[in-house]
Structures are given as structure tokens and as C-alpha cells.
């Protein structure tokens, strides 16, 4: 029994963190947020060199065949750096194709995902939260309707989506009838869009029998990765608060020697550290005990979202007026945590789902 990261996993963490410090510093995030979306290309290229596109793709299809825990570590590092890099959508897509794609589909898509020749955005919001007027309907192999909050659309060539019955499809964004219109959210470190399709040809995932399970696995992985993203973002906000508290002086002493401030930091750390264990555990369970995976994903994401909200607020408060400024840029983390909290299920939605998964509702 060992509940710890392997040597390889620690190496992945540190090389990724080093790369992100170089290619995705806050100045670059600011430029992305200001609309220069092309700056993300250099980040994506640098990450592709580390093999991130191949991470979850099985070795038989040209990937590394690693697991959800490795993916969670990657996403944690991206959240730490509030990086606009694409990763989450591609990871969800490889899970979806791996689960419900035909053999031919796997041979077609997975190698392209691994080598980066396709970039897949994800538009699955309606499988969790259906708004009036939204949803895609299939008719004769073509999809019509709208999907909201498509993620990682900026560099995508294709989009993974689902119709209102939960069946998964891949849509080529080069199709004339496929339109993406940006949705502005509080979080400008990533792009969100509304996908509109009008009798657009779509490639369904072939394995009908696995439809429900494939969707559940894809959402489960997405939720674990969002939880990991929040974990990384929270860790950074905590570290920033502790650093600031040890430097900033008022009343002739560093503010970190005031108990009110010290206890805010202690509470952040005491709440966050068990979340790290929970997220790792959920990711590990995702690969080892599939029957518990959906529940653990709901619990991990809902819990860290609550802790994240607390840390986003508390770290900002520790910084005083500085925390509220654009100058320090804490708000990028604050907003990323706020967005992760709602995406693919708010804490309340996820807890309701967790209750029904256990037969309690």
C-alpha cells in the first residue's frame, strides 16, 4: 500500500511547472485575457513537446497510456499557473473515444489526438445543465441546435458534444454550418463559446451499448480535472497569501504575526491539504475502481469547489487593497476557481447526483 506520487509523477510535476513558468507566466496570461489568443499557441507547442497530448492515449494508439492521476497532476499545474493551455478537453475526448468509439474510430482519432494534428474542444454542458432553448437534436446523422459553454475552443479543429439523449459525437468545426460565438465569462484565462449547429454532419460514437457509461466516464474525468485545476489555483493563492503575510508590514510588524492573519492562512492550509488527498484519491479510483468513480468525482469536485471559494476570498483579504487590484492579478485565480465551481455541475448539483448514485435520492 502506498498513497503517494511515484518518482515519474513527481518528475512530471516539476518539469511541467518549470516549463509553465517559462512559457506561461502571468504576463502571457494577461495578454491572452486581453484578446491575444495566439499567445496560447506557443504554450500548447511547449506542452506538446512534453507529451501532454499523448498522456491518456493508449500506447497502442501512439500515446503514453498514463492514467487519470497523471492527468490530474497536469491540470493541477495548469490551474496553479492559470494557464490558457488546452488540455482538459483533449483528455475528455480521449476518454470518450476510448470508451464508446468503434475500433476504426479509435484508430482514426486517438493517434491524431496524441500527435496534436486534431485539437478537440468540448461542449457537454447540456448533459448536466439544460437551459431553455439549448440542446442538440440528431436527425439523419446531422445535429441541429445549440450547446453552451463549449470549452477550449480557441485552438480547436473539432468539438466533442452530445445530443439531448446523451449520445456522444465529434463535429468538424470546418463545417460551414458549425458556428462558435464567444461567451464572455468572468474567467478570461480560458475561452468559452456557444456552439450552434444547423443540420451539421456529425460523427457519432459507434458503441451504442456503452452510451450512458461513456458519458458518465467522460464527465467524471472532466470533473476530476476541474477539481485538480482548482486545487492548483488554490495552492497558488495560499502560497501568495503566506508570502505576502511574511513581507508586508503594518504597525511596525509583519502582518503574518497578527493572529487574525495567521489564522486565515492556517485555515486555508488546513482545508486545502485534505483536498489534495481527495483529488488524488478520486483520480486513482477513476482508473482502479470504475464502479465508484462517478461518486468520487462528484464528491471531489463539489468539496474542493467549496474550499476554493473560501480560499479565493481569504487569500484576497490577506492582501488587503492589493488583493483587489489588477496589478497583483490575484483575480485571475479568483475567477478561474469561480468558473470551475460552476462548470460540469455546481456543488449543489453534484451533491444531488452523489446522493442518487448512492440510492439516497
Amino acid at each position, binding site marked *: 500500500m502506498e*498513497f503517494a506520487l511515484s518518482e515519474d509523477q513527481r518528475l512530471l510535476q516539476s518539469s511541467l511547472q518549470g516549463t509553465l513558468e517559462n512559457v506561461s507566466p502571468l504576463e502571457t496570461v494577461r495578454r491572452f485575457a486581453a484578446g491575444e489568443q495566439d499567445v496560447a499557441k506557443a504554450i500548447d507547442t511547449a506542452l506538446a513537446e512534453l507529451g501532454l497530448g499523448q498522456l491518456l492515449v493508449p500506447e497502442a494508439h501512439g500515446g503514453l497510456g498514463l492514467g487519470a492521476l497523471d492527468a490530474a497532476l497536469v491540470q493541477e499545474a495548469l490551474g496553479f499557473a492559470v494557464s490558457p493551455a488546452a488540455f482538459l478537453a483533449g483528455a475528455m475526448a480521449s476518454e470518450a473515444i476510448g470508451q464508446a468509439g468503434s475500433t476504426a474510430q479509435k484508430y482514426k482519432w486517438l493517434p491524431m489526438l496524441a500527435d496534436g494534428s486534431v485539437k478537440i474542444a468540448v461542449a457537454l454542458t447540456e448533459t448536466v445543465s439544460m437551459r431553455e432553448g439549448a440542446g442538440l437534436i440528431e436527425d439523419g446523422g446531422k445535429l441541429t441546435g445549440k450547446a453552451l459553454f463549449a470549452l477550449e475552443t480557441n485552438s480547436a479543429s473539432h468539438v466533442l458534444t452530445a445530443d439531448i439523449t446523451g449520445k456522444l459525437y465529434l463535429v468538424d468545426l470546418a463545417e460551414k454550418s458549425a458556428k462558435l460565438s464567444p461567451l464572455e465569462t468572468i474567467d478570461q484565462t480560458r475561452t468559452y463559446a456557444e456552439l450552434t449547429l444547423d443540420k451539421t454532419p456529425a460523427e457519432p460514437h459507434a458503441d451504442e451499448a456503452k452510451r450512458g457509461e461513456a458519458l458518465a466516464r467522460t464527465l467524471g474525468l472532466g470533473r476530476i480535472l476541474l477539481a485538480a485545476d482548482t486545487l492548483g489555483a488554490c495552492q497558488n493563492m495560499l502560497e501568495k497569501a503566506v508570502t505576502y503575510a511574511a513581507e508586508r508590514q503594518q504597525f511596525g510588524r509583519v502582518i*503574518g*504575526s497578527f*493572529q487574525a492573519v495567521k489564522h486565515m492562512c492556517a485555515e486555508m492550509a488546513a482545508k486545502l491539504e485534505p483536498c489534495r488527498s481527495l483529488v488524488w484519491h478520486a483520480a486513482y479510483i477513476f482508473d482502479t475502481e470504475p464502479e465508484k468513480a462517478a461518486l468520487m468525482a462528484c464528491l471531489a469536485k463539489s468539496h474542493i469547489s467549496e474550499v476554493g471559494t473560501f480560499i479565493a476570498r481569504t487569500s484576497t483579504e490577506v492582501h488587503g487593497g492589493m488583493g483587489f487590484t489588477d496589478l497583483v492579478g490575484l483575480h485571475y485565480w479568483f475567477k478561474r476557481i469561480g468558473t470551475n465551481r460552476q462548470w460540469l455541475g455546481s456543488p449543489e448539483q453534484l451533491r444531488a447526483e452523489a446522493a442518487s448514485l448512492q440510492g*439516497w435520492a
Partner: protein
Amino acid sequence: MDLALSPEYEAFRAEIAALLKANADKAPANSDRGLKHPKRLAWQKFLIEHGLTARTIPTEYGGYGASPDILQSRIIAEEFAKSGLPRGLAGQGISMLVPTLLELGTDEQKAQWIAPTLAGETVWCQGYSEPGAGSDLASLKTRAEIDGDDYVINGQKIWTSTAKQADMIFCLVRTEPDAKKHHGISYLIFSMDTPGIEVRPLVDMTGSANFNEVFFTDVRVPRSQIVGEPGKGWQVANATLTHERGMLGDPNAAEARLLAIADLMQTETLNGAPLMDNPVLRDRLIRLQAEVYAMQANGLRVMTARLKKESAGMAGLLIKLQGCQLNHELARLAIDALGEIGVLYGETPYLKDNGSWQWRYMYDLGLIIGGGTAQIQKNIIAERGLGLPREPRLAKQQGG
């Protein structure tokens, strides 16, 4: 990361489960009250003989004598939780004094005290806190002066749990009044029957008189009954405080309570519908479930660090604070779910689960305070875990 257990451990688990099942009839019932009830002592004896408690303590001191194996201990804990049978005794003598003696006691002290303590025949109390020395324990004033071969003790302790029932006390006293605060303290062990000791029970909010005031007037204790060196009592005590904090906030206990609440919410009805049908209560239940799992995963991480002889860092420092808080929240949910029935207490009709949830809600608050308050835990987390500076000292008060 590999949470699977090897086949040897799975076999060990099966063996423990079978052993507990076959001997369940030997276990004392809740109604077999009293620390030294014969059924309790017999059960303790059975548990030691089969390595289900005092497992790693050498046989010469009345233990089972197995070599330490954290995984085996965890399996035993889990199997007890599943079986619902009472675990071995875990009073302050067993959980705090025995580890201290094993680490720092003389051979005579070990030979004399460990075996009867493990057997439950010798009950101990912990004499640390004083009216003027709680969180600031090192400011304690009870003094012990050398007179011939004895220490002569004068002063007062407070909050001393089970002092009324205890045969013995392990006690912090000031032996060198001129030394610095943390230096002049010694750790003595002596009989509660020694002349000059008076115990006055203090009733706590649960209604029972579990803790006490203990007064010492010219209490004579042989100098040989010191543990560690004179003036080193602070280090000796800190060895035991670590054992105490590890004991509070056990995540397996939290999971058992969570399951009990889920059960209660499924079986108890209000206006004809199970409590579980109330979405707000359900939401609170799942919220706590996520926290219980987080603390369990955290426990696995701490255990892995211990197996590798590494420091668990922050994951270890937070256990007392988060674990005790979580238990308190669990009890609060059970009470809110029960509504009016949740306030019943004592022996009265309509009582659910023997009124244990109200008792827990109060008792767990005591555990948030005892053994280092929540605020002190936050100081420790911030200073030792995050490296934030200590509180600057006040300038000495004028005329003081």
C-alpha cells in the same frame, strides 16, 4: 500510488474478521459500566492475547509483542469498525503514559507499570492543566521540592479526566523555580492514594463528572518516580502530546458516524417521509461525506509518510483541528435531522440511538478544546507548517 493490499495482508484481514466474529459474545455490552467491569477486563485480556490491542508492545511488558506494522494496525482498526465490537482500552494510561515509559522510562518503571496498565487494572489520569496554565501549559506552578529521598508536592491541577477513578497520575510539576519557563518542569508518576491528594469532581456540560480538580498538599513522592531527567519534563510531556493528538480526530470513527447518520436518515420519518427525502439534509450529508473521504485519504497519506519514515508535513499537522471539527459537524447534522426528537436526552421515550448524538455534539466540543484548542492548532499550522512568524512578545508589564 497503489492502494491495493498484498495477498498476505488480505489473508490477515480475513483472519482478524473471523476471529472477531467467532468471539463476539465475549465483548462487554454498553450496560457493563465501570472502567474495571470484569467483562471489560476479560475482553481486554482476550484482545491482547490475540494481538488485537497492545499489539506491538513487548510481551515482557504484557503486550502481544508483534513488530510494528502500520498496515496491520489499520486492518485491525477497520475490522473493528465493521464488526461494531468495542476496541481495546484506550485511556490516557494506555495511549499516553505507556508510549512515554517505553521511550523514556527506566527498566524498573517499565516492568512495574506497563503490564497492569495494559490489562486495565491500573487506571491513570493526566495531571497537566492548572487553573493558570491551560494553553500556556509551560507556565504551570504546582511545585515539587526535594526533601531527602522524596519530592514534596504542593499546588493544584484542573480538568483532570477520570481522576476520581484513577489509581495513578502522571503529573507535570515545577522542580526548578528559577529556571526558564520550559526548563524547570519535571514529569512524576505517583499513586492517587498518596496522602495529601484531594479530588473534587467537576460536572461538565454533558452532565457527567468526568473531569476533576486535584489538590496537592505536602504530597510525598519518592524521587525515583520521575520519568526522564529532572527539569526535562517538558520534553517528556511533548512526547505524549503527540500521541494524544494522533488519537483525536480518527477518520475511521468519522466514517462510522457518517454511515450511522445515513442509516438514521433512511429509517426515521417526518410527516410520513424519510428524513433522507429532505434535499437540504441530503445536501448537508453529502457535504460531510466528501469531507470524511478527504480526511480518510489524508490519513492514508500520513500513513504512507510514516511507513517511509518521512514527515507527513501539513497533512499531519491538520488532523486534530479538522478531524475534531468534522466530528462535531456530523453530530450537529444528526441533531438537525432529528429536529425536536434530537433534543431528547437522558432516559426518555422517543430517544434515538440512546441520545448519543447530543452527547457527541457536546463531548466533541470538549475535544475541540482539550488537548490543544483549535486556536492553538492554527498557531501550530501557521508557524510550523507555513513558517509564519511567532507572536512578538509583549514588553514586560510595569511594576509586575
